[in-house]
């Protein structure tokens, strides 16, 4: 044997030894979880996908069970999820659904409640329920744990974070913004277009402006409908509080925003913050990693995060945008069992820790608690946890996308000056009432706001 060969043989046997050790370890894990057929997950490419992929790799390694990840463009997720449940046997065993899509799937009876597969399946207490959006009460047609069945759990949950430039704030002697008045005060000092914009949020027509208006609305004590959980769909958006919420958003846009704020989408808002052009900004937590990567950001280490500010005379409010893992009805039983096995494992503390280290946002509070907050890398975590206390699900009914279209247009029209806030809210209220009427809900509207 030549020396080279000897080395090669040594290497090979060493590898073999490691492999055997690995198998032994895997068997230990597998003993608890058991052998299951391969499953496939419909999932979107996203900032948290890399973390999820790593966790799945870990699961495969530990248990020997296989998971296929079908990474799909965000724009194609709903299409593929619908196809999957409307056809005969679903090609996917787990679908990943955005919060707004869940209603359609719950209500349409396309899914198997997780507790129907395994009556013993329970979410650990530490797992966020994100305002109970994984439960469905078919009688009330509402997402609630009260009388509802567990249909889903979240692999990812988003709330807004309010980001600001720690360095510039320090220089100017400002403290972290707690109210929108603080935001406006900071703009007064730091807003000098076109070199620097005081604050950015998404003003683009549609989902963008609707979702970014939610913190203003909830903070001002306004609501779209009176009590949908109890079946009362009276439209209350054109209340004085609603008007206050719109006026506040417009005020912030005018005094802090760039001239094209009415066309600003997610990517544009990230761009303005990442280039250092914007001093503050309201963005979803999932966007955070963008600002800490030097190939993507010129402000690495400079942004700080707090929960979305509240109106000076209001409370904090925010809307949740979370994802849901669900199981189609048409999946065969043995694969449904495999889903439960994976889910039990995925929600353990150890797996969630691996998820965080891989770049995901864990969905367990105990993984996110105190010791992380002191690590500067995770300085957004405190704001994220604080927001969980007041963040809510909005538009939790089948008509949600239609209501969003109405609000997304009317709010945008106020922003570009085509309508006054009162006129826009009156119009929106009437249109939303019409939508509810057509679908046979108990509805009505408030007297119109004075428009002058």
């Amino acid at each position: 044997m030549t020396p080279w060969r000897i080395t090669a043989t040594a290497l090979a046997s060493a590898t073999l030894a490691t492999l055997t050790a690995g198998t032994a370890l895997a068997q230990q894990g597998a003993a608890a979880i058991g052998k299951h057929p391969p499953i496939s997950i419909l999932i979107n490419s996203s900032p948290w996908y890399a973390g999820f992929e790593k966790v799945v790799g870990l699961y495969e390694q530990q248990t020997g069970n296989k998971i296929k990840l079908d990474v799909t463009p965000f724009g194609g997720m709903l299409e593929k999820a619908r196809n999957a449940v409307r056809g005969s046997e679903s090609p996917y065993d787990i679908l990943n659904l955005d919060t707004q899509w869940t209603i359609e799937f719950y209500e349409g009876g396309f899914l198997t409640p997780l507790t129907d597969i395994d009556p013993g399946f329970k979410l650990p207490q530490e797992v966020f329920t994100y305002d109970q959006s994984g439960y469905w009460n078919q009688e009330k047609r509402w997402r609630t744990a009260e009388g509802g069945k567990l249909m889903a759990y979240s692999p990812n949950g988003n709330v807004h974070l309010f980001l600001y430039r720690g360095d510039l704030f320090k220089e100017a002697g400002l403290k972290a913004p707690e109210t929108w008045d603080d935001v406006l005060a900071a703009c007064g000092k730091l807003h000098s277009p076109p070199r620097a914009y005081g604050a950015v949020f998404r003003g683009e027509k549609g989902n963008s402006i609707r979702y970014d208006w939610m913190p203003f609305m909830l903070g001002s004590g306004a609501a779209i409908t009176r009590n949908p959980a109890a079946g009362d769909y009276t439209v209350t958006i054109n209340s004085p509080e609603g008007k206050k919420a719109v006026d506040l958003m417009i005020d912030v846009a005018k005094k802090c925003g760039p001239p094209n704020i009415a066309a600003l989408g997610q990517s544009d808002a990230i761009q303005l913050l990442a280039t250092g052009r914007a001093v503050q900004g309201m963005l979803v937590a999932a966007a955070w990693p963008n600002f800490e990567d030097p190939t993507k950001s010129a402000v690495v280490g400079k942004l700080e995060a707090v929960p979305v500010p509240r109106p000076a005379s209001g409370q904090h409010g925010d809307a949740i945008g979370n994802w849901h893992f669900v199981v189609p009805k048409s999946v065969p039983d043995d694969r449904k069992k495999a889903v439960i096995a994976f889910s039990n494992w995925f929600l353990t503390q150890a797996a969630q820790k691996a998820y965080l280290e891989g770049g995901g946002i864990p969905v367990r509070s105990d993984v996110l608690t105190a010791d992380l907050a002191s690590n500067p890398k995770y300085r957004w975590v405190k704001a994220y946890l604080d927001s969980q206390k007041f963040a809510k699900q909005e538009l939790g009914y089948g008509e949600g996308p239609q209501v969003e279209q109405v609000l997304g247009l009317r709010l945008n029209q106020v922003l570009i000056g085509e309508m006054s806030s009162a006129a826009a809210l009156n119009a929106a209220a009437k249109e939303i009432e019409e939508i509810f009427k057509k679908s046979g809900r108990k509805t009505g509207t408030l007297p119109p706001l004075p428009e002058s």
Partner: protein
Amino acid sequence: MTPFGKGERWIGYGLLTLAVLLVVGPFVWITLQSFKHQIAIYTGAWIFTPTLDNYREVLFSRRSDFVSNVWNSVIVAAVSTSLVLVVGTLAAYSLHRLAWARWVALGFLAWTIFFHAIPVITLIGPWYIAFRQLGFYDTQFALIVTHLTINLPMTVWLMMAFFREIPPELEEAALVDGCRPVQAFWRISLPLAVPGLIAAGILAFIFSWNEFAVALSLTSRETATVPVAIARFAQQYEVQHSQMAAASVISTIPAVLLMFLGQRFVVRGLTLGSVK
């Protein structure tokens, strides 16, 4: 066409240069972005350190299937384009020359227009269900057949327009001389319609290469094509322009090559042995 006269030449070249610059400019700009990190794209920088990271990420990262995506696109686009040229050209010639009743020809052409006008999102649901029932979901066959159908209307119409430009006397004379109908088609009409065939082929190829909606719903990770892969860079919360640009640039290379080869194949195959 006649070449430029003396005086016209410079005006002509000037206009042409301008046109080419306007067409190429944005493409060059996109190519430039593919060598930047995202932050340099964000700031619109003109001076930057070029990087190959985006190409590396798109081609070789563990998460990327781009090479197989390109291969899928090559198969689907090449096969569906070849088929649509055969089927569409024959149908165009048939409807134009072979004495079909007026209602057949008009009916078929009108139907193709209606079909082409249908918004694609209303097509994919029924197609998904049909192909899944037949067991062709997630196969290249399904994509080839649907792309063939989608491109058929334009190919038929385009080829008819070109057959119409050929004076009928040419074929009539040949037929009188004892030439058979298939020969008349193959030896006389088809070679004269080669420019049309090339245009139809290029367009069918490009539409197949870039088709997104049907490809998305009939494929999964292993069978996905280039546009589906590139759409992954447009995420819910961010657009990865840098990698998207690199992927777009990469995807044009095999496409241009294939179109070039296909064109030569058509020209060689048809102009040899033609009686011009």
